[in-house]
């Protein structure tokens, strides 16, 4: 082997080793940094996605917040307020001079609303009311007032008005007998753990 060939072989071998080492070191450093960069990028994308989703949710919430709060205050969303119902009825009793009033409210039962998602839990309480009124005009006024003042979602299921055979012109007369069934609906929202 000539000297020039030996020299070339040594040179090329040295360059080969140099190239391999240089590339290996560079590649190792690059892959480490690439991994870190990808992780950071993924974290940013996650945060960005969560923010956008939350932003969209918050926008939706802002749109409905006021009406939602009103419904909460009216005890339609949240726990029903039976005391309020009793107080309202008592006020009406005094105002319209109801001579006879019998009422009962059955225990709260789950209620199925066909259009509602499972995360909304509906409840219904049945109320029966029997009243003796002087005149059917009192019934109209009383029911109108009651529906306005009701703290809850009131649904009059049925009402039967029966006129007494004998009409008595007395403040204590029960000329009209009223027998009504009402339903009070309320709903509760499922509590969810929000990921921070």
């Amino acid at each position: 082997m000539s000297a020039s060939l030996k020299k070339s072989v040594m040179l090329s071998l040295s360059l080969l080793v140099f190239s391999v080492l240089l590339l290996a070191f560079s590649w190792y450093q690059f892959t480490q940094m690439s991994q870190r960069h990808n992780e950071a990028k993924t974290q940013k994308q996650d945060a960005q996605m969560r923010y956008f989703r939350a932003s969209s949710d918050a926008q939706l919430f802002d749109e409905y917040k006021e009406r939602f709060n009103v419904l909460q205050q009216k005890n339609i969303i949240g726990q029903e307020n039976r005391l309020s119902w009793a107080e309202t009825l008592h006020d009406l009793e005094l105002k319209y001079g109801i001579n006879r009033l019998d009422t009962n409210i059955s225990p709260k039962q789950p209620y199925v609303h066909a259009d509602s998602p499972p995360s909304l839990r509906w409840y219904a309480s049945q109320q029966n009311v029997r009243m003796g009124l002087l005149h059917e005009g009192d019934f109209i006024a009383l029911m109108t007032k009651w529906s306005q003042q009701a703290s809850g979602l009131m649904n009059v299921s049925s009402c039967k008005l029966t006129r007494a055979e004998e009409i008595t012109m007395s403040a204590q007369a029960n000329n009209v007998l009223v027998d009504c069934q009402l339903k009070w609906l309320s709903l509760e929202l499922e509590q969810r753990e929000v990921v921070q």
Partner: protein
Amino acid sequence: MIRYTLYFDGEHMVVMTLKEGRVVHKDTFVSSEEGKQAFSFFVMEKVEAPVILLVDCIAEDFYLSTVPHVRGNDRKALHQRLQRKYFGDSELVSTRIQARQKDERRDDQLLISGVNGSPLLDDWMLVIEQTGIPLQGVVSLPLLGEDALPDLNIMDDLVLLISPQPNATVRHSLYVDGQLKVSRLSSLGTVVEDDVEQISHDIEKTVLFLEGHAGLDNRKTKQLKLHYLDVNGVGETIKQRLSKTPNLSQLIVHPMLMKQADAAIYFTELLASSGTTNHYAQSKHRKHYKQNRLALGLKWAGITMACASVVASILLWHQYFTYQQALPQLAKDTESYLQKYNQRTGELYALKVEASDVQQSVDLVEALQQEFKTQPQDFLLQLSQVLKIFEYVEVKTVDWHFVPKQTNDEFELEDDDRIQRSLPAYRAEVTAALTQYSDDPRQALDYVNRLFNVLRKQPNFQTVTPIKMPFDLSSDAEFTMSNGTEQTQNKAVFRFSVIGRRR
């Protein structure tokens, strides 16, 4: 690209500098110690790429021989024996199988050529070896002449190519079917003073020699075509001179371009374009050349590899720093999004509810509120408005029922919105009695029918259906009537149902 070719004319070593296949410069070195030293300096300074040595000297001889056709080592041994026979220990030898006999034993027809007894060339070979320049090959100028024939468009079978060479010599080469058979180099200026006369005389001598030694008979001599490579501009004169000589009257002159006014230049350029690289180079020169090529290849491969890896590394590191620079910004963006996320969702966190649940709950409750606005007092109000004009009607009972869009157990879901709208809001059954016409069925029925007609025109009443009329006049019913008694009045009771329209 500049390349170099060495040309040995028997006395001088000429270094031809070629650019794009054309000789652009030539440096001539005399065969003295000074010349060799100058040559050594020149090639060591300028020549790096392998070179070819083109030999054109008088010491080169050609022999034709017919030998049995053998193969392999036998052939090699046979050729070596013939080379030793003609050229002794000379290393610049070559044996070419030009053809095989077409009959008899089908022996091989060989051309054995070589350079023997040229101390000057031997010295130059030693100098070349000492300079270390890789010798790609040693090419014989007469053998290269085979490539000159197609280059000069010479298609003849039997050709004598005459070319004036440097050092006042003329080369005569005989080609049969394009293959060299014999070649000789003669000097001018010894017998006759005039070059034309000398060259003409030399040609005559060559033809005579060929007739005598190469077996050219009279018939073949007539077929022999003489081609003169006119580098000195005397071709036409020689042609005129030879026109008087029998069999030599057909001299064809090939005028050379001005810049090729030297056969050495012509053959050097021919060598560059022909692709011929070696006729005589010895194994040690070839080995040196191959090692040189290998070393060069390794060197360039190593450098290329190193450069490529450096470039690749630069790209990788560039990307590395790009990623590194992007990291703080990514972290900042992430933190910013998290902060904004926390700010935006604070209220929802407190409620622990989903926005979609809030939306759906509000929508559903408001829809129910709208639906539940249907209440009995509205019906009673509307009924009482109508009864103001029917003063003889006395309502006994009102049985009012809300009809929900859906119920827990009995409502049938309808997808068709049109059908949904036609669903009733409530149904009510009213029992009433007439305070007049209780003894007049015609009047009573007419009065009640008018009442029904008015009720049916009420916008919120979808349908009004009689259930019981004050008097039943159908054929299959029992009809009774009496006058002036309380019982008769009671019989004027009628009933009807109203189905309320959904708002």
